[in-house]
């Protein structure tokens, strides 16, 4: 609702003549964009405002003060005040676009694995262990909803653990199995050998590392 009010209050100059312009043939995207600059801009801005959740919109407007002649300091300031915030902002927007599940959906799915019967695979499998389930839920909070919820696959294993998998269109993968006490994962990126991490404690420090790997996908 706030977004709509904000849009109503926005006063973007609008050239009404563009509405009456007739095209002899179907215009190309660039031709159309040139003619309708302000309208296209309005659409982009309003689209972003309407689709972004609060955490992504809460980004501070970058402030850049070029009060130095030293190019290194200048570059540092630029990176800190302009480049990094914009990269973070774009990552947030991409996360939202690629977000496949909500936190509620994922927790619901994790808990559903607890209701599996003994021998659910016909070969003696056990239901998801309570500790493994709670570790997986803890991981959602540690990684942050926007990163965790881009998970591609989530499934129980016959020995009571739970697996999570993130991948991208280039088949780069981060595959993780969460157990009762620790987790193990590997990351496989194009043109490089997979990296293996075993018996990792589930805490904020490790979650930050994992989060960086997921962002690389």
């Amino acid at each position, binding site marked *: 609702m706030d977004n709509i009010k904000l849009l109503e209050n926005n006063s973007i100059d609008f050239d009404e003549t563009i509405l009456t312009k007739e095209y002899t043939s179907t215009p190309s995207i660039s031709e159309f964009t040139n003619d309708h600059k302000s309208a296209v801009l309005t659409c982009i801005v309003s689209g972003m405002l309407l689709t972004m959740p609060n955490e992504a919109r809460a980004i501070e407007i970058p402030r850049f003060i070029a009060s130095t002649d030293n190019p290194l300091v200048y570059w540092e300031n630029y990176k800190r005040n302009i480049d990094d915030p914009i990269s973070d902002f774009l990552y947030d927007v991409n996360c939202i676009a690629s977000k496949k599940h909500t936190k509620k959906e994922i927790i619901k799915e994790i808990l559903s694995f607890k209701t*599996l*019967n003994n*021998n*659910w*695979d*016909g*070969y*003696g*499998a*056990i239901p998801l*262990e309570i*500790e*493994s389930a709670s570790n997986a839920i803890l991981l959602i909070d540690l990684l942050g909803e926007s990163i965790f919820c881009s998970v591609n*696959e989530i*499934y*129980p*294993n*016959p*020995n*009571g*653990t739970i*697996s999570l*998998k993130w991948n991208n269109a280039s088949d780069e*993968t981060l*595959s993780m*199995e*969460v*157990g*009762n*006490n*620790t*987790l*193990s*994962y*590997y990351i*496989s990126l194009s043109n490089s050998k*997979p990296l*293996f*991490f*075993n018996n990792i404690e589930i805490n904020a420090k490790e979650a930050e590392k994992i989060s960086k790997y997921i962002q690389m996908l």
Partner: protein
Amino acid sequence: MLKRLKRFLNIFKCCRIKPGLLPNQIEDSEKIARSIYSPINVSKDEKSIKANTFKPPAGSEDLSVNRLDYTTLDFCKKGAKKGENPQSKRNYFGIGLLTAKDIRDSDCYIIYSPILKPKKERNLFHSDIKLGFKTIKGQQLPAEIQYKVDQLVIKTRLYKDHNPYSEKWNGPEI
């Protein structure tokens, strides 16, 4: 003299193949079938399988498969349907197909392990894929083994049975 002869013949006893059994050696080109269940083993778009298809229960490293070159898809389906458990998200879906070479290339191995007893569950085509690591209850697999399992998943071709309720195979020709 007779005793000696008997002892000599006993040496070859272990090499005798029981009638009906298949050769112990599994050729690289042999087709190996693993039963697939839905939704527990299958992705939402039903185009790929999840890695839990190739994860053994606690205390085991074996994954049951059938040697398809010596049997039929109808036989595989019959066996797979016995393992259905709809209450546990386990409905028969189809089969996952690999070659013995795919298994060996994934750093796993396969052994022939016919089931002879009880007679009701007799399966002369049964084999086991061995991961080389025994799973432990509540303890995650080492990352290297997870990678191995994922390699098996990548190499597996999924074939859906379009009528899972019938007794005969209703999927594509393999």
